[in-house]
């Protein structure tokens, strides 16, 4: 699509230029890879022993898998709680009563603006000082609460923009058949907005998974933290972090693909747009979609 906008169908001369650029681009890519491999080799990072220990059962049963489990558990708790938070405050922002709208608006804007790490650290030390939880649970609870507050606010915005993003005709049709504002919201607009939101919710799960890695800063034994411990124990930090990054990339990439697939499947069941809203990392703020 974007190619069609910028570029006409190439003629013979343009095709030659493209071919040359293609070869140059390929050479540059190969050059970058070669440079990285050369540097790794020079520092002795390519020695087989540094890589083989990554594929032992010890590495996975003691480090990588338990870490991954903690990451996924934290992310699942967070996404469920964030959806609840998001529905409550998203509907709050659509409430007919003005003070309810204001309060919901202030809460959502506040938690969207505060960095997740700031919340996590404050919760972690603050809850520890308040002495209300067993110390072993502190990191998990802090990670989940911080991720819930932040991503819940994003989901609240998704709920609101999902309802606003519906074609005007939906509301007008509901009014024309005699529905009140509340009935129209409950029976016509929300169901379609929620279906339209589903792909965006799935991309929000990617954001939650990525941000759960912040937990390693507050000693939460998630995937990154245990990968680090493994790297420190075996003396192959670089390699352990490569595995950690690759696993994150693979999971997040699959989730993104799945969200695209679901978006295409669902587009017939709603008048709203199901395109997963590009979330600029964890602004989560909606990109390009909200007009």
């Amino acid at each position, binding site marked *: 699509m974007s190619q069609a906008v910028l570029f006409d169908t190439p003629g013979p001369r343009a095709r030659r230029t493209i071919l040359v650029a293609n*070869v140059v681009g390929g050479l540059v890519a190969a050059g970058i890879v070669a440079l990285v491999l050369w540097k790794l080799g020079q520092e002795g990072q390519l020695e087989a022993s540094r890589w083989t220990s990554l594929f032992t059962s010890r590495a996975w049963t003691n480090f990588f898998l338990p870490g991954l489990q903690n990451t996924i558990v934290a992310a699942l708790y967070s996404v469920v709680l964030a959806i609840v938070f998001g529905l409550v405050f998203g509907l709050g922002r659509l409430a007919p009563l003005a003070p309810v709208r204001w309060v919901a608006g202030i809460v959502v804007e506040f938690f969207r603006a505060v960095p997740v790490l700031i919340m996590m650290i404050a919760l972690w030390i*603050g809850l520890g*000082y308040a002495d209300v939880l067993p110390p072993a649970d502190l990191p998990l609870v802090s990670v989940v609460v911080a991720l819930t507050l932040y991503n819940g606010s994003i989901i609240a915005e998704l709920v609101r923009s999902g309802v606003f993003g519906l074609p005007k005709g939906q509301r007008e049709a509901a009014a024309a058949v005699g529905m009140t504002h509340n009935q129209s919201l409950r029976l016509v607009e929300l169901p379609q907005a929620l279906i339209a939101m589903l792909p965006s919710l799935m991309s929000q799960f990617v954001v939650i998974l990525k941000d759960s890695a912040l937990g390693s800063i507050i000693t939460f034994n998630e995937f990154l933290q245990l990968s680090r411990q493994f790297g420190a124990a075996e003396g192959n930090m*670089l390699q352990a972090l490569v595995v950690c990054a690759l696993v994150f990339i693979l999971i997040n990439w699959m989730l993104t693909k799945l969200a695209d697939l679901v978006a295409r499947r669902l587009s017939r069941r709603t008048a709203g747009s199901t395109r997963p809203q590009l979330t600029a990392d964890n602004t989560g703020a909606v990109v390009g979609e909200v007009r």
Partner: protein
Amino acid sequence: MNLFEQVGFLFSSYNIPAAFWVNIQLTFWAAIGALVLGTALGVMRVSPVPSLRWLGTSYVTIFRNTPLTVIMLFGVLGVWSQLKITFSQDFTVNFFIYAVVGLGLYHAAFVCEAVRSGINTVPLGQAEAARAIGLPFIPAARLVLLPQAFRGAVAPLGNVLIALIKNSTVAAAASVATETSSVMRAMIDQNGNLVVLIFMIFAVGYVILVVPVGVLTTSLSRKLAVSR
């Protein structure tokens, strides 16, 4: 101590504005890097050259799906301590540069997507009309397509900048000890009874930094919007 005395005590014992200044500096340099790299990647991704498109797509897939914390730690624990690539003999400066590089590399992927979504807002008819009146490729891009694409990219770029301001706190993972999250941590460690107040000071600080950027880019993107 009443509330005012507590606030006064915290501001006189710790240099809180200096901590925010570190984050603003991190954001500033990383934003420049991300804008340059991200725009180049965006152009690569919409070019008709397959190898460049592939490079751009791979970059975005890799960096958008890796947690920023992993990138930061990879810089300091992998590239710096294992590959011994040093930017400066001064540790503080060295880690600051590592944090800027990590933030820049990560957000470049999002800048690339913002640029691309800006280009996608331009209807095909605009390019066809430009070609129909005889404009060659470069004038068509310079006079008709790119001005509209930049206007469409303002709102998404604003969102990336907001993300960057908040993500600058992750520099803590790259051992930058003077930025806000590290300073806040030290303050709470030493004044556990004031935890709520300390958190609110930093939270409000970020609200003050982030909200105007959001308001500004939203109003700018409305003002610049191409009415179609």
